[in-house]
């Protein structure tokens, strides 16, 4: 069905790992989604297209944009951990929110939760998170520009 086809394409674009898994075992698509044979064939063709790597990169760049714009110190403090943290965050929140402050606020909450669970990061992460999460929260409040 079309809804599953579109969702599968979005999921593949968000996950190079899923693309690789489908390349190895195309039947995975039919197990995860309700697809016609034609839709499954189309997805398999897309996954094998050389441009798919670029789609995956652009997806990650687009999702990184609100985080880099609104939490630059936190991103810098995360350093080499940023790749893994961002990937985990996107897996946890597979859809981006169009409101950049909501997206950044959600990311800050995610990092805070990871720290609370015992995940360790570089020494600057805690202070960067405190400062920028407060700034993002304030910007989010101010974006309520009109009466409810």
């Amino acid at each position: 069905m079309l809804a599953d086809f579109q969702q599968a394409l979005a999921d593949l674009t968000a996950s190079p790992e899923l693309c690789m898994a489908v390349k190895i075992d195309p039947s995975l698509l039919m197990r995860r989604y309700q697809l016609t044979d034609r839709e499954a064939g189309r997805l398999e063709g897309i996954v094998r297209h050389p441009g798919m790597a670029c789609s995956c990169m652009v997806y990650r760049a687009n999702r990184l944009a609100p985080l880099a714009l609104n939490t630059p110190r936190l991103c810098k403090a995360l350093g080499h951990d940023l790749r893994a943290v961002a990937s985990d965050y996107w897996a946890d929140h597979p859809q981006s929110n169009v409101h950049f402050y909501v997206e950044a606020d959600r990311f800050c909450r995610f990092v805070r939760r990871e720290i609370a669970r015992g995940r360790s990061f570089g020494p600057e992460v805690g202070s960067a998170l405190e400062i920028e999460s407060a700034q993002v929260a304030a910007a989010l409040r101010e974006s309520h520009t009109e009466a409810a």
Partner: protein
Amino acid sequence: MTRPTVGLLYNPVSPLLIAQAPDLVEYLGVMPDRLWYDFGPNAQGRRFHRTLGAIDELRRCAEGRLTAGHGIGLSLPSAMPLDEAFVDAVAELAADIGFSWFSEHLSVFITPKGAVPNAQAGLGLPIAYDDEVYGIVAGKAARLRQALGCPIALENGAFFTPVPDPDMTEPQFLNRLHAEGRCETLLDLHNLYVNWRNGGETPEAYIAQLDPAAVIEIHLGGGDDFAGFYMDSHSSLTPEPVWETAFAHVAGFPNLRAITYEFQETYYEDLADGLIPELERMHELAETWAPRRRLAHAG
């Protein structure tokens, strides 16, 4: 019909450029999605909060200029119902600013199984050009036209991975929408260039399939190379091959109303010296429209 207008896709630095060259900017394409904060359908209280200062500034810039809306958030090809609250918000802005038409993208931005309609896929995804998707797009375009009270256009996308095994080509899909009175075409010439640079068909081959009467607006713009691909990043002036395509075809679009340059505002300082010459060249392009049209009528 007069020659097409020349203008910009409005962004936060557009007022600076308009102040420098007010006579060169006759038209503004306005993205409603950039003029409000969308708290989503589950928001407590009001969902859309307008960026009031930005809208006031837009009103000042729009005075005496043709305007049209250019949206990204409705995702017409998505296999899900139209976001009616979003449509209402667009309609409110369209009435306020006075949009002469409204365009959207021929791409999937919102995935059907997402939890909330204002969450996006993170990228404009390609669509399958078949009857099922056609029915969805045609129905939503008709509804949108009814709600906004102005013509609707759809823009061809820039894709790295076209959907294989289509029933029709993208130009055939757009032609059918036009022929059945559903909507018109916003032809992004830079997107054609992007697709060609990344292994797709040539812009010439694409335009040869397109009904020229469907085209009411064209987009110009520039991009850059990244990781072996050419990106539609709106980071540069219009590349020379795109100009060549534009000069070769503009006169052949009898219903063309606007020639629009789009750039990302974060590149404004890098582009600043080139923007006025870009607009001047767009005016030269617009001037090529009328003579050939008169000749066509004379013939």
